[in-house]
């Protein structure tokens, strides 16, 4: 099995071909297929059912953001979802790396933030959810392109201690 390595926490895309690639149009009707496939692959990588649900939720939220904000609900934009196992030399993967590319207008990645949860109002939860359920989430402009954003997300199978450290507990 090809190794995705450990370098994905800073947004680096693994240097080997993805194990799974999904290309879809920016239409909400394809969300269920994308999240079902990602959940099934996560299960094969060794995640428990709860984490499979959380990973597919993060991918769903990311795709929703591209459809709503990136393509402004235009139905003919293209989105690519690529998946790799994260290998650390063990028999089973240590985690999953998901990269989502689009051809929408580029924005400053530093302004992509989740909202304050104390501000209870409809919308604005997607980025917060992604950061909460994944081990790392990194937005960037696609290099060498005039258009398009890239999102690199990873989740380690045993990331509870890392989460606890991040939350200062």
């Amino acid at each position, binding site marked *: 099995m090809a190794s995705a390595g450990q370098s994905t926490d800073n947004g680096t895309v693994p240097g080997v071909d993805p194990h799974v690639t999904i290309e879809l149009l920016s239409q*909400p*009707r394809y*969300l*269920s297929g994308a*999240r079902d496939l990602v959940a099934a692959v996560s299960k094969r990588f060794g995640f428990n059912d*709860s984490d499979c*649900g*959380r990973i597919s*939720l993060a991918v*769903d*939220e990311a795709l*929703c953001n591209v*459809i*709503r904000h990136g393509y402004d609900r235009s139905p003919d934009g293209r989105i690519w979802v690529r998946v790799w196992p994260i290998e650390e030399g063990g028999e089973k993967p240590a985690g999953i790396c998901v990269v989502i590319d689009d051809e929408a207008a580029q924005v400053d990645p530093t302004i992509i933030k989740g909202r304050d*949860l104390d501000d*209870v*109002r*409809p*919308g604005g*939860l*997607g980025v*917060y*959810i992604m950061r*909460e*359920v994944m081990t790392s989430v990194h937005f960037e402009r696609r290099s060498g392109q005039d258009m398009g954003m890239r999102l690199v997300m990873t989740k380690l199978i045993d990331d509870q201690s890392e989460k606890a450290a991040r939350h200062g507990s």
Partner: protein
Amino acid sequence: MEVSVERRDGFVVVAPEGDVDLSCARDLQQSLREAMEGSPARVIVDLERVPYMDSSGVATLVEAMQIARKQSTKLVLCAMQDKVRSIFEIARLDRVFTIVQDMEEASTA
């Protein structure tokens, strides 16, 4: 996803069936707005047949809660499946909504 809206004596039951995501959240939003018309004393959202919900679906429920508060309607969510409860917990909305186990409890909560 299908949504039924049933008016009973003193309350309204909104019962979506299927995944609630960006593809159908507007249908749920419309049904919830319809349920709120006439300022009923109580609106119960029966989530027993909703296996999955993303933040688009959650947003429609937050909007319904805001409408309910303005018109003094009691909004209750019931029979939430684990996957759906998970997103409410992640967003810490389980502390904001009234969430109960079943319809019986929802009619008195």
